[in-house]
């Protein structure tokens, strides 16, 4: 019994921490795909650059960890606006293949660029003392950093839900996702809205990239490709343009991925692909997507 409770809490705590990371990074991808129908495969690159900004500010410049994450959010958010205006905006009406080719190209460029600046080896940071060690749950110790990730992920999720459901901008985003042409004819500037959402989504990916340094073995140039598939799976399972869907998809996939590897190391990595297959056969539009 003890062993069972122990394994269960292990899976929940570590799985949730990983799930929150998936959510923070994937939500921006989901919204941009839902809102503009734009396939942004370079989303992982923004997360990666966020990781490198965090390494530079927190590691080299000695900025505390949490402000470093905020700096990464702002820097990558602004950077993404630049890219959105210069490159993405030209391809909004282009066929999907063109979009895919352009963004895949961006991934290659980003990998070469960060290798040039930061080198090919993974970089790590020292996390602050208050995030080290363990939190005592009474019957089990859990690492403070994982608890911290769960809290941050939950906070971001609440903020996003609130922003989308209760604010004017949120209502505009929902309207544009549902029916873009109707929203435009009602006077919503969907272009500007998209730039804003794009920046927000990229900024959040950057926070995810910074948070992930500690648990993914450092930030490295290949990050943009290695995790792209996982982010796309989260978006596909959750349904495009749906925050709630992305959240639950991240929870399910994050926890199942950890559980699979923990319980059945031999074939556990396959677990999330099997789940994805089943979900998409059952609901091709994703768990919360609209048919």
């Amino acid at each position, binding site marked *: 019994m003890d062993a069972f409770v*122990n394994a269960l809490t292990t899976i929940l705590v570590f799985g949730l921490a990983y799930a929150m990371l998936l959510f923070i990074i994937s939500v921006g991808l989901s919204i941009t795909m839902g809102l503009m129908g734009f396939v942004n495969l370079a989303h992982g690159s923004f997360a990666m650059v966020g990781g490198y900004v965090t390494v530079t500010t927190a590691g080299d410049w000695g900025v505390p960890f949490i402000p470093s994450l905020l700096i990464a959010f702002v820097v990558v958010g602004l950077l993404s606006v630049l890219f959105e205006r210069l490159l993405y905006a030209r391809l909004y009406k282009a066929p999907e293949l063109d979009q895919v080719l352009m963004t895949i190209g961006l991934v290659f460029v980003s990998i070469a660029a960060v290798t040039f600046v930061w080198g090919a*080896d993974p970089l790590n940071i020292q996390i602050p003392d208050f995030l080290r060690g*363990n939190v005592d749950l009474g019957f089990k110790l859990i690492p403070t950093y994982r608890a911290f990730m769960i809290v941050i992920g939950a906070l971001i999720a609440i903020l996003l839900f609130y922003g989308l459901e209760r604010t004017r901008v949120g209502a505009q985003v929902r309207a544009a996702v549902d029916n873009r042409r109707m929203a435009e004819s009602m006077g919503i500037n969907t272009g500007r809205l998209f730039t804003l959402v794009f920046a927000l989504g990229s900024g959040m990916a950057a926070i995810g990239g910074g948070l992930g340094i500690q*648990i993914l*073995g450092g930030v*490295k140039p*290949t990050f943009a490709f290695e995790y792209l598939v996982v982010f796309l799976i989260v978006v596909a399972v959750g349904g495009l343009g749906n925050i709630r869907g992305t959240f639950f998809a991240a929870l399910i996939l994050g926890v199942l991925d*950890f559980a699979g*590897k923990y319980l059945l*190391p031999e074939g556990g990595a396959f677990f999330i692909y099997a789940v994805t297959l089943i979900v998409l056969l059952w609901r091709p539009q994703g768990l919360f997507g609209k048919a």
Partner: protein
Amino acid sequence: MKLWKTALLGAGAVALATGSAQAREIKVGFVATFSGGLANLGEQMRRGAELYHNLHKGDLKGDTIKVIFRDSKNPGGAVAKSVVQELITRDKVDIVTGLVFSPNAMSVAPLVTQAKVPVVIMNAGTSFITNMSPNLARVSFTMWQSGYIMGEHAAKNLNCKTAIAGFTNYPPGKDSANAFKNGFEKAGGKVVDLIPMGGPAKVPDFTPFFQRAKDKKPDCFYVFVPAGNHASAVVKAYGQLGMKAAGVKLIGPGDITQDTQLQGMGDAAVGLVTAHHYYADLNTPTNKAFVAAWKKAYGADTTPDFVGVGGYDGMAAIYHVIKSVKGKITAEKAMAALKGWTFESPRGKIMIDPATRDIVQNVYIMEVGMDGKRLVQNQKGVFNAVKDKCKELKIGRCGK
């Protein structure tokens, strides 16, 4: 990418193609990982080989060496196979060397058997590789040399009654875990779980695997991962999950305390016990001279490691072949020259076993400690002239 490769090739050719042109020009195809996240391994190997060459190029008496560097990119084997094919058919190389990863060495074996080209393996450590072709000789190590000895040592000297082995799920990983299990259980211990921890191409999040090991409360946790970036992630995960405080001792082959990665591992590495054939901290005159020459050549903040020594000794083996084979170098003549070859390596005396073409060498037990702010590896024991246990016991493909 293309540009960089050409530049590297050019630099290598210039650096190594010295001496007069009256006698033979020996072409050596050097295949290793020179790009991507694992490029540091190929670079270490190249530096080791180049260091030996620069210190001994006078020994060849007129013959010259032209080294052609080719990138095998990843541990998958396919790229290595196609570049070796090109080296043999287009460049007509006399000797192939390098080979960081086992799958790459394995994919090359049938080719060199057919083409009758000798291969000096500078790293790839899966035990049965040398059985795959009569034209392979290995100067690096076998997974069984470190794994089996670590198993015995853990049971006898580290007071471990139970152990778990975690390994990267590809041939040398399975080999290493199997070697450890054999050594540990023969000495009276019990391996309670074997945990495959993802493939070699990317560094996984080790948490699920390590947490699984921690929850089973073994005395020792033996880990094999490929040298390079995996190793730092292993020590990090071990530290983060509080496994040391929970009484689980981390042990492994020296791949996980690779000298080039060691300083980045932090406090969590202290107390880690490994078995391997080379450490930069080995306290012998030959090694001290070698480390000094290395630092002089590549900078005071660099250090050789077992991959670098593999390159150094591999080049020594190639020099031996060139000096002792008259006329054209064939696989048969090269292997005949290498069988029984002995050399005073920085790691101690080494020999190529005439029966298996595999290396016979010392295996050291080291423990990571602190010297001021620097992490150091302190010698706790040594086993002299260790042969490959897998072939001795004829286990699985080692018996064929």
